[in-house]
């Protein structure tokens, strides 16, 4: 019925169509099927094809005719060499076919648990065949599928479909199995202490990792399919009772309005659902660490997992979430605080140091101590460019070097860094193209930009460095202040799913400073951050401070 309607509905908006499909309990796959089924019509107009089309079109529900059903699937999977149709005789009597896709189906299991018993055994007449299949097959998941769309979804996800004569339904056999990468250490977020597990490309593995950490059934995982061709599964994980229900509603709504051909990475989702798409700052955090994701879940945030990528998304966040690392919490709190402050100061160095150098050298020489000024100006003597050009040249060169190092194969990467270091460092200074202090400034800037624990946040800072350098070259310190003020103006207006981006500094939330300005000892972190709406304030009992007096009676 559904498929039958499709050609008529061409004029309707796609959104409505998908909505109707969902209402009817069907699948979103219809768009693909629709196309495939229409193909013969477009290609050859002879009577036979016309006949075929008319035969196939109404077969939204599987028909009673075994041949028709098989033919319909053959047409859908026309020119798909990886789809296998395996005909056999069920109990030596009835014709049957198993349809599966090579590589994502457990073929051995199929031979052992499906084909051999079904071919060998003879049917006992006492119970109908479909009940026998559902009750006796040694497979954990057997499901009856009534529509072609459902069957195709099942086949695509690796579960073979069994069709046989005299049955108007297909049996989806839970035999999906494909090659997965094992759980490995997260490469982009390494640390000294802490779990070494990372998320995985396969969604089930990732959700199971969350479930293994948070065992409470309050951890809810809702999934949906996005991408008309890729049909990528996207799961929203949250803890019921900690999360603001309106947040989940908002995320679901934003996800639902994505109509795209394919989702290849979680960045696709991120760019489609963030609050301000024209901001250099990421408004959603991505992580490949299950422990980071779980700590966000426990704070009342939501995690969005996407099939096919180990990077999950966390929302809502603030700027400071991007500057926190998982290791802050796995070390003693003083160390964590100190490292956090180191990070904040190097963040500002990474943003401003070249600009400061340019501004002071161009406009405010009086602020440089005399001895330093002498040595700097001596080394700048041979350099033909003004400071701002020199700085821009070097910074761009450094960015290029870094980009080349990231993208290249490892073997060549080291060669690039050696050549780059020689060119940028030694040779450029000796040739008199840049001054030695400039090289030092660029090097410090480069190192400090590696201090930011999130790569995506680091990129934002790297982008903003350049306009500020230009401002410093034209207006000196005033220009730098102008740059800082405009960044702050932008950040003050930014929100991530309703949460102000600079919270808890602006607007000030005194209670939450304990995890931003310093890292409180864990026994002092009694309250959760307040994101939006209602929240569950207390995360632990108040009087947890350990002390020797609090020990038991044992001497």
């Amino acid at each position, binding site marked *: 019925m559904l498929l039958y309607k499709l050609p008529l509905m061409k004029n309707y908006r796609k959104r409505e169509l998908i909505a109707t499909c969902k209402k009817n309990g069907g699948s979103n796959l219809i768009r693909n099927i629709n196309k495939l089924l229409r193909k013969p019509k477009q290609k050859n107009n002879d009577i036979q094809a016309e006949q075929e089309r008319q035969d196939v079109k109404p077969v939204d529900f599987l028909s009673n005719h075994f041949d028709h059903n098989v033919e319909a699937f053959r047409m859908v999977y026309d020119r798909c060499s990886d789809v296998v149709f395996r005909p056999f005789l069920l109990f030596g009597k009835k014709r049957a076919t198993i349809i599966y896709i090579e590589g994502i189906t457990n073929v051995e299991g199929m031979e052992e648990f499906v084909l051999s018993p079904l071919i060998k055994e003879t049917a006992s007449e006492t119970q109908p065949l479909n009940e026998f299949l559902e009750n006796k097959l040694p497979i954990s998941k057997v499901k009856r599928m009534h529509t072609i769309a459902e069957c195709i979804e099942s086949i695509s996800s690796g579960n073979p479909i069994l069709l046989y004569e005299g049955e108007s339904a297909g049996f989806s056999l839970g035999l999906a199995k494909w090659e997965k990468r094992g759980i490995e250490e997260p490469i982009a977020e390494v640390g000294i202490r802490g779990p070494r597990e990372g998320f995985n490309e396969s969604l089930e593995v990732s959700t199971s990792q969350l479930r293994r950490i948070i065992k409470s059934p309050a951890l809810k995982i809702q999934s949906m399919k996005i991408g008309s061709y890729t049909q990528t599964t996207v799961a929203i994980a949250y803890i019921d009772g900690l999360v603001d229900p309106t947040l989940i509603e908002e995320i679901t709504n934003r996800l639902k309005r994505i109509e795209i051909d394919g989702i290849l990475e979680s960045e696709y989702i991120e760019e489609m659902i963030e609050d301000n798409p024209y901001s250099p700052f990421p408004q959603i955090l991505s992580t490949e660490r299950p422990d980071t994701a779980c700590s966000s879940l426990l704070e009342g945030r939501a995690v969005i997992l996407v099939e096919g990528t180990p990077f999950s998304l966390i929302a809502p966040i603030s700027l400071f979430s991007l500057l926190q690392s998982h290791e802050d919490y796995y070390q003693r709190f003083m160390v964590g605080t100190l490292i956090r402050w180191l990070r904040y100061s190097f963040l500002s160095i990474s943003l401003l140091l070249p600009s400061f150098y340019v501004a002071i050298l161009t406009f405010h020489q009086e*602020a440089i101590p005399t001895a330093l000024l002498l040595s700097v100006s001596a080394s700048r003597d041979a350099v033909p460019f003004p400071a701002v050009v020199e700085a821009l040249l070097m910074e761009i060169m450094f960015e290029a070097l870094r980009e080349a190092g990231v993208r290249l194969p490892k073997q060549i990467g080291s060669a690039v860094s050696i050549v780059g270091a020689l060119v940028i460092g030694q040779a450029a200074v000796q040739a008199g193209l840049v001054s030695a202090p400039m090289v030092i400034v660029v090097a410090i800037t480069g190192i400090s930009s590696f201090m930011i624990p999130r790569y995506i946040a680091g990129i934002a800072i790297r982008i903003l460095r350049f306009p500020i350098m230009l401002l410093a070259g034209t207006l000196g310190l005033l220009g730098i202040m102008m740059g800082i003020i405009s960044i702050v*103006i932008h950040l003050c207006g930014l929100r991530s799913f309703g949460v102000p981006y*600079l919270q808890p500094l*602006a*607007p000030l939330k005194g209670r939450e400073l304990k995890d931003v300005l310093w890292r409180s000892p864990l026994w002092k972190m009694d309250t959760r951050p307040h994101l939006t709406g209602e929240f569950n304030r207390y995360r632990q009992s108040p009087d947890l401070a350990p002390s020797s007096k609090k020990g038991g009676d044992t001497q």
Partner: protein
Amino acid sequence: MEKGKISSLQMAIMMYPGIVATAILSVPSITAKYAKTDFWLSPILASLIGYMTVYIAYKLHKLYPKQTVIQFSEQIIGRFAGKIIGFLFLVFYIQITGNMLRQYAEFVVDSFLVNTPISLIIALMALLCSFIVRGGLEALGRAAQLFFPIFTLPLLFLIILVFPDFEFKNIFPILGEGMMPPIKGAIVPGGWFTEFFLITFFLPFLTDQKKGMKYGMMTVFVVMMTLVVVNLIVLFILGLATSFKVYPLMSVGRYISLGGFFEHLESAVMAIWVVGAFIKISVFYYGIALGTAQWLNLSDYRPIVWSLGILLVIFSFWSLPSTVELHKYSVGTFPLLGLLIQMIIPLFLLGIAVMRKRKRQGSE
């Protein structure tokens, strides 16, 4: 019109640089001219005007809780007269904000970017301010909150850094010529304290309206303390020479010496001060934008922000032909004009409003 809400703390933090930013620039030297060595007492006397202004603004707010001065003046003295009063307020605020822009730019160009055209400096600042005003009250409140420590902490550092150069005997004689000199000196800072009437534009948007008065008064006190401290620093360092300096605090900045290595940090002081100037101008700019939109009965103030910005830039040139005029204006015109518009007129409005309320209650 304004959907955002701010806390009273945010209002206080917005008002603080709103008064202090320009008050620490030239006011110490003007005050010193009249009060000699007692010019550190003047802010204390001048703050009385501030307390009164906040009191009047809050009382008016109590009577008309959801309205700004532009709206309730129409309610109090009738539509036509109210529009005239509103217009007076707007012109006054546009003019003084233009003045602030000019003062800021004169300071920057005079001391640091001698060859840069002043119009560029003014236009850039106006552009930045219009961005934040378009961002709305919440964004403005957050920016002020974020910049507050950047603006105030260096002032504390300044005390520590120039402490070795303090000449404490500069403070004597205390009240050597009686009370008159400090009172005379209080007139100019008094003009600055009348600017507290600007809270009338923020009071309707507070999340905790009851604390409005408390935080307003607290801000006056903190501003007074800041000015006293700044005046004392200047006095201890420069002594009687204060009155000859155009920007005394900047001259104090020259005394900074950190381990004999970091010296001449005026440019850093300037960079920090720019933040204060930005907040100050934005706060006034916001008041103007909101007020104008209310005066014209518009549904949103954002569309007129750009045009008001151009008007501010123009006023910064029109109202003052030169720095000499600027100085004359600060000393002669502004204190009286500010007192008239921001205290006498509101007082008069409050009087009528209270009388009308009594009358209404009496008739009931």
